[in-house]
């Protein structure tokens, strides 16, 4: 009997926890609706399209290719990123460069974002610091797959 009463007490205590959450959250919601200053918000939700969460400094977002001071891409077509890419989504075609210091430049640099897993290995492998994933763009969605294939011009933007 005493055990049963103990269970009953615990059931009520459990109910009081949700009541407490309900009452405090409703209190902060009401304060917000009335336009008063509140200690915190009524919900932890971030209302995504209107309100965006700040990305972490090391967040891996959409790729970009960097340029030299004269505007040419830094990439020297060493194919290290192509080799390291686990989803095999990068394809690079090299071309000759008249500058003997550089020798090779990419004629084509294509990342198929529909396959990319955003692991960031290409950034780590790059010896020239030519590719980075710091654009902060995380909404890479398209209606057609062809639009997800990013070429040199799109990546250099």
């Amino acid at each position, binding site marked *: 009997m005493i055990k049963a009463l103990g269970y009953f007490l615990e*059931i009520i205590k459990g*109910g009081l926890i*949700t009541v407490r*959450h*309900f009452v405090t*959250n409703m209190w902060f919601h009401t304060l917000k609706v009335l336009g008063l200053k509140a200690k915190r918000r009524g*919900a932890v*939700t971030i209302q995504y399209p209107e309100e965006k969460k700040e990305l972490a400094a090391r967040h891996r977002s959409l790729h970009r290719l960097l340029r030299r001071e004269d505007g040419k891409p830094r990439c020297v077509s060493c194919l290290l990123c192509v080799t390291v890419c686990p989803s095999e989504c990068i394809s690079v075609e090299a071309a000759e460069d008249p500058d003997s210091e550089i020798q090779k430049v990419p004629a084509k640099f294509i990342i198929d974002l529909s396959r990319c897993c955003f692991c960031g290995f290409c950034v780590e492998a790059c010896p020239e610091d030519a590719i980075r994933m710091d654009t902060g763009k995380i909404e890479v969605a398209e209606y057609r797959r062809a639009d997800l294939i990013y070429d040199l011009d799109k990546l250099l933007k």
Partner: protein
Amino acid sequence: MDIVIAVIKIILALVWFLVLTLYLTWLERKESAVIQDRIGANRANIWKFRFLGLFQPFADAIKMIFKEDFVPAFANKFLHTLAPFLSFFFVAITICAVPFGDTLRLGGRTISLQVLDLNAGLLFILAMLSLGIYGIILSGWASRNRFTLLGGIRGAAQLISYEVALGLSLIGIIMVFPSLSLQSIVRFQGENILGFIPKWGVLLQPLGFVVFFFAALAETKRVPFDMPEGESEIIGFFTEYGGLKWGLFMMTDFMEIIIVSALLTTLFFGGWQVPWLAADGFHWPWGGGRALPHGVVVLLQLLAFNIKIVFFCWLQILIRWTYPRFRYDQVMDLGWKVLIPLSLLNIVGTGIVMGFLK
């Protein structure tokens, strides 16, 4: 003229019932969200006008109406279609016995604010709520799917184990307020104990209230007593349903919540009674009073009834979002070994106290 009044009453009661059901889905989403520190559905809008997601129930309803009405090839088509309508009908009809308020005097007529003043209204509601199980058993059987059949049979087993306690727990109330008509039970609760405490059923029958509350929670077939559905193990009796037919089952659930709230308020919390409010105005227990016109009194009564109902709907949703579900055998244990002995104890205790007070 009487027929016109009756039709108007039926339409108003049904509209009240269905609109409250629709907005109970909204309340359920919002309340669970607030409990869990979320916001809840707030995107449905008309011309970018969102207003707390209040249009969400209509969006859901439109979606359900336009979904494909699919009947599996292996199902018994007639019974498969009949089952949700049975379920819905038996709950929807219970509204006719619920007293919304006292009588309304309008143009020399006295209109009872109740669709039908049955002299056995309480038994009528209980009977109709029990008949609702036919929808569940039929849907489980007619779908010809093992899991739906399990759900239907579980529903039947659960019904047997709590329905006895549900009926027995109300015998105490019938002893205290000697009537089976809900309207007169509410009228009895207008009196005061010792001159100032409202004579509500919960004060006279606390144990009966607890037993009835648990049994009524089981009646609604939602978590913590969702044996027929059992979302985490069998999907339940409505596995093979979709679109509007599934929607009927869902609405049945919510309508049962409202009916249970209506029963709780009517039997234990004074129905449409406002403390110290009589037909001519307030009579304060410390002497004096405040006379009110007839219309205001009726409005106050309707308002009190609605507030009490919404409170109990809120409480039931809170319980649904707080507690984990019972195991199958635990529900049986609770019904047969705890609730029925307690309700029998309540009957004996009530009898002894009434004998001494005579």
